[in-house]
């Protein structure tokens, strides 16, 4: 049981990092980004490259993946979305554009994995890092590192958003871009920032993900469902939503499915993604703005004085 919990926590932590980016870019640009999961896979491959070529432990490659991921996020915005936004494209067009971008990333990842295989003389389309993981008093490194990453991200975001001028401007632009523009804030900057952060966080999660599961170029196609579920259940209009949703989805995918399997038999275990999808549907139908959009949440917020 404790192992189920540990696994669920690691997965939740990573989901939080991935969902944060999705939520932020949704707030600033208004696009649900279908390429979000592929960002993570790019991160995994960057970490793999550093491991194979210079023997760097994937945990240590996080700063590199963070920065490269940021660049990836920015290029997504510049190449795939900005030209369309300029032409006043509809939201469906933007969604399809992120899909096309996802396909391009998929092709690049695949091609790259082959190039890397030729260098390392190993098949590099499928890999895990789990055997490289460390262990402190029975707690696997992936849990420690992923939790630290989430903590650092939250702390960093909190300080940035609440204690700096740029952060206040960011919150202002998220709430009301046209007014922010009127205040002399260049709203475009906040979009750039959110795309940078979105890519950076996702790629960072990508360096930890192979400690948890095997990575193939197609992995993104499968995990994107969970990321969307996390963001939506938490609430797409609130950054904190990603945090709440990430843990709810991450934990229910493993833990809830596990409890169901005790009650209904092991056959249920294969349907874990169905559970997160159903939770997402229920959220959208009952309360489209997600958990952070509820009155109860507003009270919690007031109490926390955020």
């Amino acid at each position, binding site marked *: 049981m404790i192992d189920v919990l540990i696994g669920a926590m690691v997965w939740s932590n990573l989901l939080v990092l991935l969902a944060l980016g999705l939520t932020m870019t949704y707030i600033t640009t208004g696009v*649900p980004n279908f390429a979000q999961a592929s960002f993570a896979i790019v991160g995994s491959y960057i970490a793999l490259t550093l491991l194979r070529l210079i023997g760097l432990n994937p945990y240590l490659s996080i700063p590199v993946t963070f920065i490269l991921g940021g660049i990836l996020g920015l290029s997504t915005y510049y*190449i*795939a979305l900005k*030209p*369309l936004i300029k*032409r*006043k*494209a509809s*939201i*469906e*067009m933007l*969604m*399809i*554009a992120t*899909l*096309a*971008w*996802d*396909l*391009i990333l*998929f*092709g*690049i990842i*695949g*091609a*790259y994995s*082959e*190039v890397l295989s*030729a260098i390392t003389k190993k098949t590099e389309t499928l890999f895990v890092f789990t055997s490289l993981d460390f262990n402190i008093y029975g707690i696997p490194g992936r849990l420690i590192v992923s939790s630290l990453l989430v903590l650092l991200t939250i702390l960093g975001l909190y300080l940035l958003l609440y204690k700096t001028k740029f952060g206040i401007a960011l919150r202002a632009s998220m709430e009301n871009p046209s007014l922010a523009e009127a205040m002399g804030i260049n709203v475009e900057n906040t979009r750039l920032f959110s795309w940078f952060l979105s890519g950076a966080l996702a790629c960072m999660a990508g360096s930890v993900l192979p400690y948890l599961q095997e990575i193939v170029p197609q992995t993104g*196609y499968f995990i994107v*469902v969970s990321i*969307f*579920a996390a963001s*939506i259940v938490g609430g797409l209009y609130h950054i904190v939503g990603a945090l709440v949703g990430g843990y709810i989805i991450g934990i229910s995918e493993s833990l809830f499915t596990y409890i169901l399997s005790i009650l209904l038999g092991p056959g249920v275990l*294969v*349907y874990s*993604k*169905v559970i997160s*999808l*159903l939770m*997402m*549907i229920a959220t*959208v*139908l009952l309360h*489209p703005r997600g958990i952070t959009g509820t009155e109860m949440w507003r009270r919690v917020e007031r109490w926390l004085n955020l």
Partner: protein
Amino acid sequence: MVELITLILFFFALYVIVSLSLNLEFGYGGIPNFGKALSVLTGALVVGGILNRLLIWYFGIEGDFISASSLAAYRMTEIVSQNPLIGLGIFLFCVTMAVVAGAIAGALSILPSAKLKGDYLGVTLLAISEVVYLILFYNTEIVGGYYGVSVPDILAFVPGEYRVYAYTVLALICALLVYLFLEKLLNSPYGRILRGHRENEDLIKAFGRDVMKLRIKTMALGSAIAAIAGVVFVFYSSSVVVNAFNRVEWTFYPFLIVLLGGKGNNKGVVLGAFIFVLLKMLIDFYKFDIKYLLHLPFEAVWLQYIVFGILALLILCYKPEGILKEEPIYTPPIKSRLKTNP
């Protein structure tokens, strides 16, 4: 080359059916149905799940569903090869059932999301479709899941090497009928109200129309049409395998086609489908040559994804209103005015 052209025409016909149905829902009705794959899957489900069970029962075959399906399909194929009418009869029977099942599935899937709009509605429909897909994929009892089940070859009376052509013709006929039907339908009062609904829901409400009823009707109609494509595809490939009905091919590609061809313009969508399938197949077909030409250090398959993605982006970027713009609806009074007042 003939094979390539046949393949292009076949998938062109399939995508015309699916994209036109999406155009009805999304282009005219403003419902972003990101769960399009579900309706195509419904068509397949009818053939694999219902027709097969009927056949198994009719032939009195014992054993597990998947193996029994193989046997039933085989026996039926034998019969059809002697008796063309039975084959066509089965086809019409399945299309009818698929239309009914598709309509029900479409109506049901929009029901819970009555109050949603825009991207939220789209994502919900996507999630519903994905849930059904996953359940059908993992549960091998319903339509064989990842194993898939065989279905009879309804054109078994056509000699083997011509059968692909025959299916292509069948698909093209279906596409043509769907097109004609939709053209007629959308130039009726229903079509005008649908466009009105897309532009301004409140206006429709003000005219005393029930928006929800309109949505349900539209989704039912759209899904019923798309289910036909599922039936054609399943008979063509002689099997129902659930992973063939994933969201990329049956939801995202049709969206790309509708956006490429022009929202709310059926002619444009047909043209869009043609260009899309042509480009996709040509990239697929010539990728090896491109690879040799450019001396790429990786397999051509990756090139295909990258090139296709880039083309899709370019299309979106340079064709924001589609190849053909939405045409005004010519009601008789307008037509007569146009005549007198050119």
